[in-house]
């Protein structure tokens, strides 16, 4: 395993200077050239024997035949694959430590109906043991979302994109309040008495009130608190995406109508039957966050689930991101590569699968100007793999970089391993 102690050492020495220059940027200095790499740029194709040039925390240049400047630290990776850091589009990382230990759960809201103002940043824990476990396997960003359903609020609150590199408290939160979250369908049945029409009505009532203000009448008290109403305004302005847990095609159709009526920027999460509306979703530019291995009629709202849904959605032109349905806590965000590989096995082009765990989540949360590809000007968060194909199960990160810094390739799990393994 290649490690770069020199980089960490230099970073430490130069940190005060870097901090003085830019207090909100991670401390970092120097020029790093990753040479002889197979660069999966995402969007710009795959470049063989190419160079990735990093200055401080940013990518400065990407290409073949780039001469590293004088004094650059050169890391010849011997033809290894390099990708952007991976991005899990839906987790509770930093909010949930041990699913079965209530004391470690900060992902769940308590308001029975509306909790739109909830901001996960108030509960995010950068020292979560889960974070290094994902980070050393190439996950550099994740959406940390409030839980939806399970008897929680209908409007669940606002999630944040986190940087798993967590080089500083400022760097840890990549984008606060990046999206509002909402369950619809079976998961929401426990949050509002009644069926789907009741849920939709409850949403319309909330949206009307947020848009028009609460009625000044003692006979009809306000539904929303002032903060909840304020929190919904960016959603109704189409600035902040609304991520909806929804599977059934009919529910997605109802949501498209709701989104149209209120000018909402909609994102589908779950989407077991989204492929049945692939064209409409493509036309309306509604992205889908899905688990491509979710192929069983496990719920009555997912009866048409199938293994090739990612491929069907892609062929219709839908923007896709992948996240594991059975692991919302993010304990195994590291396995999104496997999800991507399985989507490829069922017909999705390889490049599209890589984009679904890099660029597309960044797009969904409005961070694609700084994340998601290997391009000049973007944050230097990337992974050097030990194999040719990062979507293969035998491949593993040789080294992960977060904003130009080589992260320590250890986690509590590697420490446990080293304590017990007898080689």
């Amino acid at each position, binding site marked *: 395993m290649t490690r770069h102690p020199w980089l960490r050492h230099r970073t430490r020495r130069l940190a005060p200077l870097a901090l003085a220059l830019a207090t909100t940027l991670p401390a970092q200095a120097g020029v790093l050239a990753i040479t002889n790499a197979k660069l999966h740029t995402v969007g710009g194709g795959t470049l063989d024997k190419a160079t990735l040039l990093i200055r401080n925390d940013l990518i400065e240049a990407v290409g073949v035949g780039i001469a590293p400047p004088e004094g650059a630290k050169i890391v010849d990776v011997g033809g290894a694959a390099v990708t952007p850091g991976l991005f899990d589009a839906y987790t509770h990382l930093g909010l949930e*430590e*041990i*699913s*079965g*230990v209530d004391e470690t759960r900060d992902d769940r809201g308590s308001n029975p109906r509306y909790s739109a103002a909830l901001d996960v940043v108030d509960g995010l824990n950068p020292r979560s043991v*889960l974070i290094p476990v994902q980070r050393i396997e190439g996950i550099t960003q994740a959406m940390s979302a409030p839980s939806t359903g399970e008897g929680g609020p209908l409007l669940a609150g606002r999630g944040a994109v986190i940087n798993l590199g967590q080089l500083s408290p400022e760097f840890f*939160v*990549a*984008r*606060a*309040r*990046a999206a509002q979250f909402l369950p619809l369908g079976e998961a929401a049945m426990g949050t509002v008495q009644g069926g789907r029409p009741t849920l939709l009505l409850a949403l319309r009532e909330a949206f009307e009130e947020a848009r028009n203000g609460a009625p000044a009448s003692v006979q009809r008290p306000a539904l929303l608190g002032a903060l909840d109403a304020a*929190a919904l*305004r*960016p959603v109704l*302005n*189409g*600035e*902040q995406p609304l991520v909806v847990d929804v599977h059934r095609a009919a529910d997605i159709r109802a949501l498209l109508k709701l989104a149209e009526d209120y000018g909402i*920027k909609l994102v589908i999460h779950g989407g077991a039957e989204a492929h*049945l509306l*692939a*064209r409409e979703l*493509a036309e309306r*530019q509604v992205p889908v966050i899905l688990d491509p*291995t*979710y*192929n*069983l*009629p*496990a*719920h*009555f709202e997912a*009866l*048409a689930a*199938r293994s090739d849904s990612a491929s069907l959605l*892609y*062929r*219709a*032109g839908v923007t896709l991101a992948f996240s594991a349905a*059975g692991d919302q*806590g993010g*304990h*195994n965000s*590291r396995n999104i590569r*496997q999800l991507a*590989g*399985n989507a490829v096995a069922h017909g999705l082009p390889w490049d599209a699968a890589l984009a679904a765990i890099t660029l597309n989540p960044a797009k969904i949360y409005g961070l694609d100007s700084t994340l998601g590809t290997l391009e000049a000007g973007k944050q230097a968060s990337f992974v050097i793999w030990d194999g040719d194909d990062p*979507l*293969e*199960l*035998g*491949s*593993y990160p040789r080294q992960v970089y977060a904003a130009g810094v080589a992260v320590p390739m250890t986690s509590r*799990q590697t420490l*446990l*391993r080293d304590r*017990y*393994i007898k*080689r």
Partner: protein
Amino acid sequence: MRPSLFAVAASLSLLLSLGACDKSEPKTGPYASTYAAPVAPALLITHATILTGAGRKLEDASLLVQDGKIVAVGNEVAPPPQVEILDAKGRWLTPGLIDAHSHLGVYPSPEIWATADGNELTDPVTPNVWSEHSVWPQDPGFEAARAGGITSLLILPGSGNLIGGRGTVFKNLPATSYQTMKFPGAPYSLKMACGENPKRVYGKEGKKAPATRMGNVAGYRAAFIKAQEYAAKHKDGGGEGRDLGMETLAGVLKGEILVQNHCYRADEMETMLDLAKEFEFKISTFHHAVEAYKIAGRLAEEGVCGALWADWWGFKLEAWDGIRENIAIVDAAVSKSGARGCAIVHSDDPYGIQRLNQEAAKAMAAGRRAGLVIRDEDAIAWITANPARAIGIGDQTGSLEPGKNADLVLWNGTPFSSYALADRVYIDGTLRYDRASRKAPDSDFALGLAPPEEALQAMPPPPPPPPAAPDSAAAPTEAAPAAAETQP
């Protein structure tokens, strides 16, 4: 019409006295298997990369099937007359995969109250219940697992009880009743559970014993004390007062029913090994066992298997210490007599069971990175021969050796890949899944749920990327604070 009590008792005592493993009388006992292997044509698979499950990897090799059994495996297999020859150049052939821990049929799709039949949570000790009486053969998960190469599986009761009941081994066949799926001659298993689940279900939620881990152990001991008394009284089929639960526990004491023990923590596994010593029975396998790597040497010494996930962890405290190398470390342990550890990749999950091969691939990769020497031909045993041994069917299936059942998976390439797909799955030499031929689902429940295939296939090729969306939609009006709020 119910059979007379006498008839049931007589056939049960026959089963017990012959031993459940007696293959000459596979259809004795109540609720007996009605499976009869269909007549299968002879088949010669040629030019395949073969992982035998018995430690060998053969390149450009052949395998001959006759009468549902494997007849020959090797580089030089002469074709008999009138044999179908399947050229498998570029493809890999493995034994049918075996899941030692499934709840298909007892926790089927759809996952609703009406179908949740896996945990008899009315008492912490229910050795009287049999999982097979809950198995719904229409669970669409069975055929999804078949497409993933699963040919046999042990369906267990859940882990809410200290002693959860009997588990049954099935062949993964389409069926209208479970008896036609029952694996002839396979022994029953007993599900036991350590740790958090029983103490949560009863102590926390039910306000009764067990409420603690010491309560758990007291519960097992009380049950086995009773079972010892029962077994002594009912020796040789005698004694009065039949007790279903005690029959099962007496079967464990006689070594006829295999103990499958859900147990996560190393210390609790050691306690369970002591329990087994106290009552003189054997634990076949610890299931889930995320801390098995901490006691891998003892497990190898005791000849106890570990049925494990490749990487699940952290969903409760007793799963907090899971590591990727768990399976590889259990596999690498060696007993004083030189026996290798018995590592198994299990699923416990209707999605995981569809790709046990991939889970094995991850576990193998983790072990190799940690410096352990693991060959493909070793790792395949984690999902074939080792689970076959753990659930008592190792003499019939789990490896590609002459005389074994022709349970086979032909893969599109190496099975240790995220791109691996089973092209063909054979059970007893009969083709039961063929990726090349689309057909209606086997499950009645799944029938007619998906739209016509043509509607989906008629979708257009991907259009050129849409023009970039306008940078911002409507400018915020009154919401200046909110707009500021959306920035990092």
